[in-house]
């Protein structure tokens, strides 16, 4: 039995395991970072800690979130906090999150508990980018919940992300 925090991005219902979620916040002041990958909205100050703001909409569907007004910040726990959970709950499968990151989301939804049996592998007909980050789907009463893989969503370095991260600004600069 796992518990998921669910939320809406671009009209779709997504969920991440609640163990990853530290808090949900509104009104963080984002500072844009020039030359940052496109899906990184910028940095924000969360009580003295610098948080990387990831545009989940951009990450999942390749186009940036349109209406930033009224959006929420889903702040994830960092490794230091996760380490305690790993030990206490014997969850070695939890992803490693060295930085403090948060997702920009449209709206917060309910908290659901699901048995492993209720979670099905992602259907084959969904978009490639989305499938990349999806761990599984679950049927709620009348909705479909896509469960996101935090480790894959936050992977950097490693294999190249399937979306254009806009890493070439410096070259453009030369061309001028």
């Amino acid at each position, binding site marked *: 039995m796992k518990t998921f925090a669910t939320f809406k991005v671009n009209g779709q219902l997504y969920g991440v395991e609640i163990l990853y979620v530290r808090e949900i916040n509104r009104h963080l002041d984002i*500072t844009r970072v020039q030359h940052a990958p496109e899906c990184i909205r910028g940095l924000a*100050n969360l009580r*003295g800690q*610098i948080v*990387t703001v*990831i545009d989940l909409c951009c990450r999942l569907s390749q186009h*940036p979130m349109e209406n930033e007004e009224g959006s929420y910040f889903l702040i994830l726990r960092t490794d230091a906090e996760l380490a305690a959970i790993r030990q206490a709950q014997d969850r070695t499968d939890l992803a490693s999150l060295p930085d403090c*990151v948060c997702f920009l989301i449209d709206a917060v939804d309910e908290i659901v508990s699901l048995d492993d049996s209720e979670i099905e592998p992602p259907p084959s007909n969904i978009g490639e980018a989305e499938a990349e980050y999806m761990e599984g789907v679950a049927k709620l009463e009348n909705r479909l919940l896509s469960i996101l893989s935090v480790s894959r969503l936050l992977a950097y370095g490693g294999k190249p992300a399937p979306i254009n991260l806009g890493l070439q600004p410096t070259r*453009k600069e030369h061309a001028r």
Partner: protein
Amino acid sequence: MMNDENLIQEFVSEGREHLAGIEPDFLVLEREGEATDPEVVNRIFRAIHSIKGASGFFGFEAIKRLSHSMENVLMMVRDGKLKPSTGLVSPLLTGTDRLSLMLDDIQASEQVPFADVVETLEAIMNPGAAPVAPQAETPLQATTPTPSAHIVAACAPEPEEIEASARMGQVIYALKLRWNEELVEKNRDPLQVLQLAESLGRVVRCSFSLEQPPTLEDAMDPELPLVILLSSVLEEDLLAIALDMEQSQIEAFLDAKPAPVAEAIELESSTPTGTQPPGAALSESDSEPQTHPETMATPVIEGAIAAENPAPAPDADSKKAKAVASESVETIRVRVDLLNNLMNLAGELVLLRNQLLRTLKDDAGQPDGLGTVLQNLNLTTSNLQEHIMQTRMQPIGSVFSRFRRVVRDMAHQLDKKIDLEIIGEEVELDKSLLESLSDPLTHIVRNSCDHGLETAEERLVAGKPETGRLLLHAYHEGGQINILIEDDGRGIDPAKVARKAIQSGLVTAAQVDRMSQKDIINFIMLPGFSTAENVSDLSGRGVGMDVVRTNIEKMGGNITIESRLGHGTRMLLKLPLTLAIIPSLIVAVKDYRFAIPQLNLVELICVRSDEVSRRVEKIGAADVLRLRGRLLPLLRLADALEIERDYTDPETGEALSERRTAIADRRTEDWGSLDAVGSRKGGFRRQDGLQNIYIVILSLGANQYGLIVDHVLNLEEIVVKPLPNYLKSCRSFSGATIMGDGKVAMILDVVGLSQSVQLAFTETDTEAHRRETAAIKPDCDMEQHDIVLFNFAENEVFAVPLSGILRIEKCRMENIQQVGQQEYLPYHGKGLPLVRLNNLFPVSPLPHHLEEGYLIIPNTPGYEFGIIASCILDAVQVEAKLQPIFDGQQPGLSGAAVIQNRMTMFVDPDALAHRTGLRATSLPQTQNPMATEQIPDSMQDPICDLTPEPCVQ
């Protein structure tokens, strides 16, 4: 057992500290010889002793035995029975190395060979027993006094034996083994004690058979006392501790007075010869021939002294040593992560304070008394932060001192004579910085020893003193740490470097022709420039220098190299004090704020709108700023970061416009007048120049460039937060910080920024070089001078070269104080000696009525003084030919010329400094071949630049 792990960890870290601590002491011992302060020997002794003690406790046999041998030698040194010498110190140093090897992997410590060291050490101690020394590992065999089959274990030593021992500085002890219940509990049988005794000295004989070792029951028998005769350098009390025995169980036989042993009995015993005594198997594996040149060095043994000094050292000595040992414990161990947490919290507090100050400043309706409270909060926070920072600070001496050893070893290996001078060991640096400083420094020092400094013969041929000089000098300057590494070796040959650079296709010959020597030498820091081939071509200089530079830059510092062929090389590292909180300049482009570390900051320039066209020029595609005769490439921060402006480019317009739509605010149009900067189509000249432009001059190693920003806000101490991993690709930033208003601001990476737009240093350099060549010889014909004109007496005009001035300040004449013949002015907490020109030259004195004058503080490394002026007239660039004045007999005046129709006398600050001899107190006062007037100005430039104190407008 868990506890054991922790204890062992503790032991290892303590042991490391001990070893690190004594290495410099060994070198002192070697250098000073007999004149060494006894405390130094005591310190080494205590360190080794505590390692030995602890290793015995944990059962690390190898460490115990090695440290024991070292301890024995040290004890003889301490008691004056051995003279310290290279032959003595070398094996001790090797021993120290082995010990640290053992500590590195404590569980495998037994695998580290050490028998050779022990042998050498024992040979030093027992010069008479030299032939037996190779077997010293198996003391029982070696010390069996007679090969007879029947050893009469008369357990009182013969007078000759006592005498022989005394000659080696040893004393014979009778160890009376009386076992009782308590010892049984400790589970020590006589054999173990015997083995332990072997490790502490030479077992002369013992009263029991080794083939049929007595059992515990035997030992319990009061009728059968077991006695071991041990010859050892240890004192009685130490021996008791080492053997874990009561002192009453040990009896010493002093020279010529062999006291009878009451319990001595005779025992028939078969000879142990031929049988493998316990422990022999172990020592066999240890004695792999590890031939180190150092350990093979013949030890110098002062047998005569040992013989004259047969009695053990007075007890008082060892007691004193113990007292000192207990006294030195005044620190506690704190985990580094705890300190880091404290550091972070202090950082948060600083942020909160900034926020509070900002919030309340805007709020007019403050309750009474809040101001004072705020001020206190402000002070306390700063204080707290400072102190917490200090907990992480360590003197740089801990890194420097290891170079004594490095240099010593290299000098031995390379057969050179090198004198290492270390200044500023007490300068403190953040622990993390110190750690990462070690490698680059080692590299530079090794380079200097290996390739920079010549052999004694070569030096003599070159007319230099036989002993090469290497200087490590750390000092504070402008909130940062400077580390100077200087040698008086052969220097780097720019021609060779240039040739290599051309060969490897880095530059063309034509480009090299236009480059300054400094830039050519900087090639050695380019990655890939250092290839194996270079080792012979460039005598190795440059190998790995790119790594050095990368490391230093990673630490937020920079490195400059200067070299004069045949005279030496000088490298200057500039480092921040700490990485965590740094003073920074906050600038803004539109509403984005950025922090620029003050370390990179040279100065701030505001070019007034009507001056823009005059001061900003275009060379090729690059905009450059004309600044005091230098040309600096310019870079617009907005362009570098692609912060939107109304801008279209025919080639890349498409890609850019896409980005533009993503940025909300495009309405600030004030910058329209400057928009064409950086584009090929326009330049400053074409603009109306309605705006002042702010240029931040940044230093980038030897290069500088100007960064154009919209606004210069303020200086602030910022807490550096590392860049999140997702942003590592943003080379323009080195970190982030939280500003007083709670918003995040990015910290600019000066290096990354310039790389991202490939600043055209070469183009400006070409131009600069052209100007430089025009102004190379000071004595020849018409020459360009950048000078400051000033009055001393009202109508006599003097000139000082602009490059020779550190700063100019106003001063009240009434503040001048006279001490003897010398006048001083309180200046930055120090008394600054003053120079009146009329005291040195036949010129008119200052006007009497003068109330306020000026102080010209010249830029003369090593000297510190101020020249009084009554009035500063102008700063001008003139072409003039200097003519001798006063028959050229006045050092300090380089000549005179007519400037602006006035006879003007040119003051030469360097010569003046030499003439007055007013040396600075904070700088090295030694003969420094690089710091005298032999050096062309261009070489001194980066080190003695104008102080990086920003001053807007």
